[in-house]
């Protein structure tokens, strides 16, 4: 959870509401990086457009990675692109998340077997938080991916987990 990640050893009456507020803020304002790779990018645009409307969830596009919270890897990642994606990910500021959209970036998709120039899953170069299946995923599926990411953010904590697993 970014800067405050695991900074506290105990949960207490102040930290819990603070944590809730911070998590609420982060999950309600997920700005994604305006960055399309292939077919899925068209569906990503469709999701942002009037009919599905990303903005309802507070999701906005940002064209500079510095201001983005979540990177949607929308499309096929090729060998030539892989290092760029890694670099873009490094340019994003913490806390940052990655949604892998579509089969191609999940695993290589239809290019799994013969795609000599296709990276078999974007998770080989950057960590992925949510995988959205589909080729391409419907806009509803991408929204579901965002809801899953929100769920994940809600459960994040600033408290360090104890060695005994509590």
């Amino acid at each position: 959870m970014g800067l405050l990640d695991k900074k506290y050893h105990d949960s207490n009456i102040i930290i819990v509401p603070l944590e809730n507020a911070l998590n609420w803020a982060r999950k309600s304002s997920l700005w994604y990086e305006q960055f399309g790779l292939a077919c899925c990018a068209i569906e990503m645009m469709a999701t942002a457009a009037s009919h599905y409307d990303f903005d309802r969830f507070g999701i906005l596009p940002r064209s500079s990675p510095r201001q983005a919270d979540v990177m949607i890897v929308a499309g096929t990642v090729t060998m030539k692109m892989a290092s760029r994606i890694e670099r873009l990910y490094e340019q994003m500021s913490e806390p940052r998340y990655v949604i892998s959209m579509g089969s191609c970036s999940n695993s290589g998709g239809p290019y799994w077997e013969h795609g000599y120039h296709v990276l078999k899953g974007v998770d080989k170069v950057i960590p992925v938080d949510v995988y959205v299946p589909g080729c391409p995923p419907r806009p509803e599926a991408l929204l579901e991916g965002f809801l899953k990411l929100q769920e994940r953010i809600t459960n994040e904590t600033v408290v360090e987990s104890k060695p005994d697993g509590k």
Partner: protein
Amino acid sequence: MIEFLENITPSTTMALVIHAMIPLGLILVYALFAIWMERKVAAHVQDRLGPMRVGWHGWAQTIADMLKLLQKEDIIPTDASRFLFRFAPFLIFVASYAAFAVIPFSSGYIGSSINIGVFYLLAITSLLTLSVIMAAWASNNKWSLLGGMRSAAQMVSYEVPTIMSVLSVIVVAGSLNLMTVTEMQSGNEILGFLPNWLIFQNPFLLVAFVIFFVSILAESHRVPFDLPESESELVAGYQTEYSGMRWGIFMLAEYADMLLLSLLGVVLFFGGWNSPFGTFMDGPVWGFFWFMLKGMLLVFVMMWIRWTLPRYRVDQLMRICWNILIPASFVNFVLIALWEMIF
């Protein structure tokens, strides 16, 4: 206002501090509202809903955004000039905040009723250019640099028509003190029912207002003149390298700037805090209401334009300024002066 604050607070210093903080509070509340409004206006123009999930119709969206920006990592690029990079957002905010000092919010509140109010305001807003260039140069990023250079050229050029149109108002009003300018616009005497606002007093002031409005669109980097941060060309212009709250401050300053220039327009052309219905709903509190309402209407028009028009190119922007607005504003200035001499 200051007397009232002195009465309820233990010391004069504290009263002064609170007095000075009022615009700050106003800016923050306004920014929260304006950013939400911008998104709602955009959404409804585009046949969408806009933020819906955070509170009623997403009213808390901006609060969430700000709280999130506060948590973001504060990245300073390795090759950036560290001091200038950190300093620029504050300078830009200070510039727009300081300018609010001379704005008469209502008959009961003005930060400082100095005699050179207009002059002070125009001088202090020039700092915006400086901070934008500072941010752009310090980022050590080519996109930022291009954005900064565009911004410098744009703001320096558009200051001329802004000042000329402001001057034409001053010629009519005869004072640089914004409070005085507002006070002389009270009453409903033009044609028997129209308020005594300057825009109705002189036909050429209508032209002056158009020039003024176009210039403030350019000064506050709004479409069709949003070249310094034009997304499709320069990624994010001078803000490209900024992240987290530093970027948030740029955003805040941009919206504060919009409000500031709109309010200036309201004071100069639309009677400031005067009620449009003569003495009906008049008074310091109602005055504040009318003042903000008029200001927000202008802000709304700016948003409306933003979501309708495409963007100009950098050379066209300059041509509009130097070939059309500046000559027009000079001619208009002379005409206003003549009108004032004759009538």
